[in-house]
Every structure is written in C-alpha cells, then in structure tokens.
C-alpha cells in the first residue's frame, strides 16, 4: 500500500469536486430572510468542510508536536511536518472562502473584533509560520523542539476557535449542525456530509503522503551525511 496516500488524496479531491458540483447545481438555495446574499451561501459547502479538515489537521499537529517533544518519536515529527502543511492548505481554503462570503453577506470581508475569525486565521498563520520557519532552519533537535513547542501551544486556539461562536457570537454565524437552532434541510445536510467525508479523506491522504515524503527527505539527508563522511 505504498500509494495509499496518493489514492486517498485523489479520492478526497474527487469527493471535494463532487461536493462543489452538488452544492452549486443540486442543493437548494436558502430562501430565509436572515441572509443578505442567499446565492453566496453556497460557498458554505466548501467553507465548512475545509474548516473541519483544518481543525483535524491542527489536532494531528498537536499530537505530532506533543509526541515528538515528550517521546522523541520519529513518526511524530513526520506527522508534525505533514499536518502543518495540510493545516495551511485547508486553513487557507477556509479563510479565503470565508472572506468571499463575508464580502457578499456582511459587506466587509473581515471583522477584526470577531473572535472566531481571528483565532482561526491565527491557526492558519501558525501553520504558515511552521512550514516557512522549518524550511529556513537546518533539521535538528533544536529546530524540532522549537517548532513542536509552537505546535503544542498553538493548539490552545483550537478549542477557543470551536467555542468562540457559542460564547461570543459577534459576526461569524453560530453552529448549524447538531444544534436545535440549525437551519439546514436534509439535502443541504447530505451535501455537507459528502463534503466533510471527502475533505477528511483528502486530509488523511495528504498527511500519509506528506509523512512519507518527510521520511524520504530525512533519509536522503542521512545518506548525504554518510556520503560526506566517506569522501
């Protein structure tokens, strides 16, 4: 199953494409008065699954960072590397789709006083910081410990982001799934479910491929060092 990661990534991408197609062509439009821009609401089928996938990536980033820091497991560092990249990709998908919707619905793309928007953006920036920062440093225990520390402390933002709209609903809408206040009909819910499953498969595939790639990169560096010792 050497190609498991690639297979899952492709399956996830196909599912994400199907979600978009169903969302734009099959799922019913919202007609409720609460929306200023009902057409823009369809971004929701991309925005929510990507947010879910990003949260999953950030959780895996926390596991990878913690296991590296305390147990020094090599797989944990590879998980840290792959999940920070996955978190960056899905986080950007979520932030960009959210700002497009915000511009249409609220008239402004961003609200600096909204806790949910800012903590989620911060998580995405943390992933960018980890990805770019790691590339700027030689691999070694100091690099791994430092970035793992950021990965661990950064996780504090995950529960804060999750509960933000439940505690301080400023501008970002509250939860629509699994609550009595939800306004989803069954067709909408089905498309959203397909989206969530697709993005989960996509992110798992991406992380498996990323971990394998990180393993190969580290092996290549080891071989280079051994070669340098020989010559």
């Amino acid at each position, binding site marked *: 199953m050497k190609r498991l990661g690639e297979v899952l990534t492709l399956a996830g991408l196909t599912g994400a494409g199907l979600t978009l197609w169903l969302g734009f062509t099959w799922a019913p439009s919202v007609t409720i008065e609460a929306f200023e821009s009902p057409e823009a609401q369809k971004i929701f089928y991309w925005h929510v699954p990507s947010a879910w996938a990003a949260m999953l990536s950030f959780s895996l980033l926390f596991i990878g960072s913690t296991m590296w820091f305390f147990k020094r497991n090599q797989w944990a560092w590879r998980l840290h590397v792959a999940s920070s990249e996955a978190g960056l990709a899905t986080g950007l998908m979520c932030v960009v789709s959210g700002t497009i919707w915000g511009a249409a619905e609220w008239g402004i793309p961003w609200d600096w*006083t909204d*806790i949910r928007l800012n903590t989620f*953006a911060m998580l995405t920036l943390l992933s*960018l*910081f980890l990805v770019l*920062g790691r590339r700027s440093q030689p691999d*070694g225990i*100091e690099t791994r410990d*430092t970035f793992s520390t*950021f990965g661990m402390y950064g996780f504090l933002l995950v529960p804060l982001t999750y509960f933000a709209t439940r505690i301080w609903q400023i501008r970002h809408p509250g939860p629509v799934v699994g609550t009595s206040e939800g306004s989803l009909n069954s067709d909408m819910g089905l498309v959203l479910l397909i989206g969530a499953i697709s993005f989960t498969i996509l992110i798992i595939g991406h992380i498996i491929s990323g971990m394998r790639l990180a393993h190969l990169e580290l092996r290549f560096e080891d071989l280079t060092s051994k070669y340098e010792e020989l010559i």
Partner: protein
Amino acid sequence: MAVLIKLEDLTVRRGRKEVLNGWNLNIDSAEVVVLSGENGCGKSTVIEAAAGLLNLENGSSKIQNQTIRDSEGRRGRTNFGLCLQNDCVMGDELVGEKLLDAAQANFDVKSLLDEWKLGHRINDKIAFLSGGQRRKIAVLSALVPAMISAQPIAVLLDEPDSGLDDDSIEILVQLLRDLAAGGHAILVTSHNQKIINAANRVISFPFSEKKQSPIIGTFNKLESKKSTTKNIGLRLNIRTMSGFANNGIAGLLVLGSMLAFVTPNQLGSEMLFAFILAPALAAGLNGDPIFKLLQENRAHAWWYVRKATPPNAFAHVFLGCGLLTILSSAIANHWDAIVILSGATLGLFTAIVVTILSHATLRLARPNAVMLRLLTPILILPWAILVSRLS
C-alpha cells in the same frame, strides 16, 4: 572536598547528532579541570549543558548543589562564572559597568582592568574595543564572581584564551591557579598548552583522563561591597535610544500616515478610539527594544544564566505607549485618562507577547530567519476589542 560541579549521566543532542551520551563529571572545590580535544568533539556542549543552556535528553547538571537543569525540565540558578565561545557581551555596555553587573557588587574595577591593560577603556562602550580586548572583558565577567567571593563557587570557561595575547594568557593561567587556591572549581575548554599545564585534571575527548600537579596559587579576595544590579535594560535603552528608534518611530509613523487621510475631529466614536490607540499598538508590535541588543554576541545566553528575566525596557514601552496615546488624544482633542492608560497597557501587553515569541526562537540555528511577524496579526484582536469596548 565538596563537589561544586556535578554532571550526571548527561545525554545531549545538537542538530542531528548525539554529542554526549551518558557523560559524568564531578569537579571538586579547588580543582581546575581542562577539557581538550579536536574541534566539534563536544567540549563546548559540556560547558553549555553544565550552564543549563541546552535541553538534556537525559541526566542533570548541578552547580554548588543547585540543579541547574535536568532532563525532566527542572531549572534553577545560582551564582557562578560563565564565559562562552561567543563573548556574550552587548556592544552598548560600558567596560567597567559590565564587570560590575557581572559581580553584582561594587569593587575596584579600575585596578583589575589596569592589570589586564584595559584601565584606560573603563568608560568606553564594549563595541569600540578590539576583538581581543572584548574577549578579555568576556573572560573577566566570568572570573569576577569568583574573585570577589569568599565562598567557593564554580567557573565555566569555553576557550577563554581564544584571541588573547601571550601576556594575557600568562595572567589568566596565574589567575586560574589563584582562584583554585581559594577553593573555586574551574572547568575550562582549551587547546592552549599553558592552560592545560595549569590543570589538576585534563580530560581529552573521546575519552582519556590525566591527573597533574600544577603550581599552587595564592588567593587574595577582591574587596567588594554587595550591590544588586537594577534596571540594566532601562539604562541601555536610555543610552541607545533603541525604544525611540524602534517602538517610538513605528507609533509616530502610524499616527502620521493616519493623519494624511483622516480628520480626527470628524471621526465617529469607534473610529476615534481606533485612531487614538493605533500608535500604541504599532509601537508594541516592535517588542522589547532591548531584545535586539541581547542578540548581539549571544548576550542573551549569558543573561539567561544570571537572571530568570533578562534585561528589558518594558517600563519604557509602557511610558512610551502612554505618551503616544497622549499625543494622538491631543490631536483628536479627546482627553480621557482611561483611554491613555488603555493605550499604555495595550502597547505593553503587545510588546510582552512579541518578546516572548522572539525568545522562544532563540534556540534555533538561525533565529533571525524565522518569520515571527506571521504570528503577530492576532495582536490586532485585543486592540479591536478594546476599541469596541471603549466606544
């Protein structure tokens, strides 16, 4: 003889290599131990691990019975001398002042500097010294705590002879023996034969140990009067104007840019508070003005060993952000003590967060290459919430 330096089962990794594996070393009072060996064999790692500057995979470092660091994450501090390969001095410190800070006591600095042919530079900035002269100050900073102490303490020296002339090495060798006569325990790394000859024990890497009988010195404690070093960061900030040049200018630039497009007395309530508090936020985003000075010659490492809180100028950041808020309040013609206090507190809070993030990256091989600014946009949130609450 009491053991003053105790390294137990040390395992240390640096980069991708395990440099020390299960390393043990005890150094008794009145003993000089020299570590020698090829470059890269791990001598400096021993010194830095003993000083508590490295994370330990296993084992512990104790100095004067105080745990300095162990693999469980426990950390502690005690009075000992330290000189690393980097000189660990800030260029803006004055020569005499640096030695007084190292001693944490008042003593006759001039006579000591005269012995080392530096008496005429006592009031000069360290930045104006030559490399060799700067090295002398770094070495003296490590030796002074032992020279003024009647109680035996530990001294850790990493290649102290590097860059020193022959006469200075002679003085150093004699001083090492004199300090040992006073009961102090000294761990030195060196390739210099004169220093090696001054040792009671020579440990060569990978590993062999040789005992010697060096000359016996005479310890004459330097007379000193206890004093605590206070406000080092504030003193440096006043001397360098770093706070004004970094934080202050950022705040003034933001204020000036806003004034190019905004007429403050026509602003609504929310925009008015955003206008008044924005310069303090911009100033705070530059962090502690002393942080950049501490990065020079790895000075932060030396201060980390001495104090839990490194020199900083947060008090000036608070005052500066307060002044910026007063200025923007004056321009907007809106006077409110709570808003001014909020601006000062916001700037201070922002600067503290930025500084903590900056300190967290200091262990990296290239701390300046990390894009820490990516993490600072979150600091707009407290500003925005404050603006929202005030209006």
